[in-house]
């Protein structure tokens, strides 16, 4: 009993030396989570003070070297090198089958790598697997909760399996249900929960022991937009409290919003690493798309719009696209130019790069073939 309480205390300590943090709960409490919930500004996205603050030496919370894992002929991981600094959020971005889930499974000790090494919190995922499991939380692609148990029973069970005495596990379960807005459903069987509620419960289960390092495998795949947003806010809350988070996603907007740093993974290899802005720059920034009234005027339109970008606009039917140098005012500028030239516009929009764009650009497929790229993106 003593051991478990002490362990919980260690786990809920801030993982980094971040100074002047919000008052941090000792022991298995999640007060900080609810406090953060009230402070969370709605809709604010950009400033993530997540990366190694104030010149302290960053310690890799996750360190991966030459990781290889094959299934038969398929190399799911083909020599991955990756570091995640303590207290940061890394988004592992890639299409289905890129190796994202395999990566998470290796790092959470569920799968042994064929070659290479990986350590989490300084512990080797193979040799120190047993100790490591006490320091990580995993939330999967599908909500890994027992449908026939209530929300509270699920969380209590997980707590007890982390070694908490029953009463402590119960209290912890109630705290988590409260902060995940599941209190009302606490005593209902999970089979009556909505998809979003299940996912929140699953995430709560990953947080029972307040682990300093969290692995989230496609945390929002299959969720409706509202539940997705709620889950995003929760993840942001955790991140802002100093947890190290590694999440996989197929969606650039998700990585964009949550991750301070993104690793793009394709066919088992990390093919790019950077912030979302850096990645988008590599795609070529924002594109202005103009649907004209009549296809006959595309020539004129392309000519007048060419001043807005460095490369010549592309034309496809009555659609003219130009990669713009500057985002602010691009739509207004485009409309003004076309209006002056007397070209009728049906629709005009700035399109942000999607994963497909980033991906096409990074893998080299489809670059320069905007039309084709767009078809796939649409």
């Amino acid at each position, binding site marked *: 009993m003593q051991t478990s309480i002490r362990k919980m205390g260690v786990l809920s300590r801030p993982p980094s030396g971040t100074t002047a943090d919000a008052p941090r709960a000792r022991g298995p409490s999640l007060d900080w989570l609810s406090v953060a919930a009230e402070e969370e500004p709605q809709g604010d996205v950009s400033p993530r003070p997540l990366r190694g603050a104030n010149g302290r030496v960053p310690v890799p919370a996750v360190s991966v070297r030459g990781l290889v894992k094959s299934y038969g002929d398929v190399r799911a991981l083909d020599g991955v090198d990756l570091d995640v600094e303590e207290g940061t959020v890394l988004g592992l971005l890639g299409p289905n089958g890129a190796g994202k889930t395999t990566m998470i499974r290796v790092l959470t*000790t569920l799968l042994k790598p064929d070659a290479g090494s990986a350590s989490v919190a300084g512990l080797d995922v193979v040799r120190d697997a047993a100790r490591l499991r006490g320091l990580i939380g*995993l939330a999967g692609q599908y909500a890994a909760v027992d449908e*026939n148990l209530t929300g509270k*029973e699920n969380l209590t*069970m997980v707590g007890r399996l982390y070694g908490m005495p029953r009463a402590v596990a119960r209290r912890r379960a109630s705290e988590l249900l409260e902060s995940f807005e599941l209190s009302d459903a606490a005593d209902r069987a999970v089979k009556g929960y909505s998809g979003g509620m299940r996912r929140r419960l699953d995430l709560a289960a990953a947080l029972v022991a307040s682990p300093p390092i969290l692995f989230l495998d496609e945390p929002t795949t299959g969720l409706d937009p509202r539940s997705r947003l709620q889950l995003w806010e929760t993840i942001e809350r955790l991140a802002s409290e100093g947890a190290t988070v590694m999440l996989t996603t197929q969606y650039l907007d998700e990585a964009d919003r949550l991750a301070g740093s993104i690793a793009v993974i394709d066919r088992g290899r990390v093919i790019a690493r950077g912030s979302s802005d850096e990645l988008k720059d590599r795609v070529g920034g924002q594109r202005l798309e103009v649907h004209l009234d009549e296809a006959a005027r595309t020539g004129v339109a392309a000519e007048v719009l060419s001043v807005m970008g460095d490369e010549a606009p592309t034309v496809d039917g009555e659609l003219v696209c130009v990669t713009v140098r500057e985002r602010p005012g691009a739509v207004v500028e485009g409309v003004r130019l076309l209006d002056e030239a007397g070209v009728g516009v049906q629709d005009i929009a700035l399109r942000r790069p999607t994963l497909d764009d980033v991906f096409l650009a990074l893998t080299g497929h489809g670059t320069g073939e905007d039309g084709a790229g767009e078809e796939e993106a649409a």
Partner: protein
Amino acid sequence: MRRLVGDTLVIAERNLIRLPRAPELLLAFTVQPIMFVLLFRYVFGGAISTPGYSYADFLIPGITVQNIAFGGFVTAIGLNEDLHKGIIDRFRSLPMARSAVLAGRTSADIVTNLLSAVILVLTGLAIGFTFHTSAGDVLAGFGLLLLFGYAFSWVFAFVGMVVSSPEAANSVGFIAIFPLTFISSAFVPVISMPEPLRAFAEVNPFTIAVDALRALWLGAPAGDNVWKAVLWSVAIAAVFAPLAVRRYRRAAAS
């Protein structure tokens, strides 16, 4: 070790509290044995001659053994569901004892098996079955039953970890174990079978277990059946438990 026991109990508790909420499983434990007893007693009973015993007396030990061997199917189905829903992944990512998930499952089976056996015996008593032995022997019979059932829970645990879907778990268990229980002394005297079947039935662990139970409940000549049945149970568990745990360690969700 304390960790293993504690974690096993947590998992066993989980499996037991969810049971009443899965009515189809509960039916399998309660209504199904009653139905089989009635069918055998009244449909086949009249046509089967069991010298020395009434058919009710002959049937109940046999059908209880058959029933308890199948008790573990909940383990197979449940484990397979857990595997596909990612619950096994969650357990494997937790700092818990590695064999606790399986041990918890099979331990929960002991409770449901006991429930099922008691219902079955009560049904038997209602249709003319009587114990012919001392209370001690009767209890020893229940003990042997639970041990035998526990061994088969490990067989089912292994099946649940190996097959691709809960449905497959069900049918593999059924196809593998159903004939075994029938080519035994459970429902008819072995002597009435054609030679090759009889040869098989005589060495079948089900025959040994059923005959052992008849010794403990009806006072039939025990021979060495009781300790042989115990030995079989231990051997089956000793083979399948490590196999199942090994699969569990490597388990990957679909």
